[in-house]
């Protein structure tokens, strides 16, 4: 993020820069995709409040663990039950 320290007035320099914040420490359970069952239907993505789910270059659905807050909607709504919530190891 480009921030000029000499400016004292509050200015946001980039659009959508909350993506620089890491909210992973909000989470107590992490969603894990079971590749064998996942069909990349993107249902988890449309129901994710963040969105912390994206498609990689190969077209596979991935979870962005920096921004996932661990709400569990994806695991609840996955039509093939391919997402499991696993307790975080701290």
């Amino acid at each position, binding site marked *: 993020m480009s*921030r000029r320290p000499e400016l004292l007035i*509050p*200015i*946001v320099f980039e*659009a*959508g*820069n*909350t*993506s*620089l*914040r*890491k*909210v992973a420490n*909000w*989470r107590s359970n992490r969603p894990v995709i079971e590749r064998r069952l996942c069909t990349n*239907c*993107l*249902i988890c*993505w*449309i*129901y*994710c*409040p*963040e*969105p*912390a789910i994206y*498609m990689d270059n190969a077209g596979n659905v991935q979870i*962005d663990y*920096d*921004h996932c*807050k*661990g*709400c*569990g*909607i994806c*695991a*609840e*709504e996955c039509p093939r039950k391919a997402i499991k*919530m696993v307790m975080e190891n701290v």
Partner: protein
Amino acid sequence: MQVSKLLDLYGREGLSPGHSACQGCGATIAVRQVLLAAEPPYIVVSPTGCLEVISTPYPYTAWRVPWVHVAFENAAAVASGIEAALRVLERKGLGRRHKIIVIGGDGGTFDIGLQAISGAFERGHDLLYVCYDNEAYMNTGIQRSAATPIGSVTTTTPAGKRERKKDIVSILVSHGSPYVATASPHLWKDLANKVRKAQSIEGPTFLHIVAPCPRGWYYDSSLTIKIAKLAVETRVFPIYEVENGKYRINYLISRPRPVEEYLRLQSRFAYLLRPENAALLEEFKRWVEERWNQLLKLAAAFPP
């Protein structure tokens, strides 16, 4: 263009991750889906509310699209001003029209912002007003609003609210709006197509979206979509649209699930479900039934 599959929406994100919404926030799901479906270029106007607080924690912003935050009561008035200014700029050849989307919560729509909305709809500005309805003032700590249903416990109605929910859709239909609709985030295709349709119609349009709130409705954060689905399937939140005064039910529930199924998942209705409050529960059921029957009659009055 109609939305038929999720890939039609993928990659059009208007909201960035990393905002400070609670886990399982229903409002962000609704807003995300609206922005995914909206046709650019557009400008978003937001009154104060959960959405404003969660999307802009200083010095960050979650918005990737032009966004204006204004006071609680005047979002519709500011949106009218932007729309009128852009119309003039276009006429003078100095700019182009943008679509205006106002995204407000139920407090800024049902209570505080109502007169500004009434004014904007009466003047007939070309804007889309989206209300994500989490049925209380969640941002300030779950106070009752006009959108809170009967029997719901909030911090200002500790024994359950006694009054019915305000019927905002009828209010806006009677303003002569060309398009007023309700939607739920679990029916994403229906929601996306309603946003597209509302944007393509000239004039003030309104979209009322149910947005379950895990913090204020007291349920587990993973159940947000399930509760939105139950709200629709128990007829508590009917999905319908009103086009030029013609009612149409988009999601006809012929065999509704029992209302208790919806109520039992949420601790805000724990008081309503106590045996000594059976009369209040009856009143809740009567409210649901009366509204559905009224809708059926209105829809039957306008055959397709």
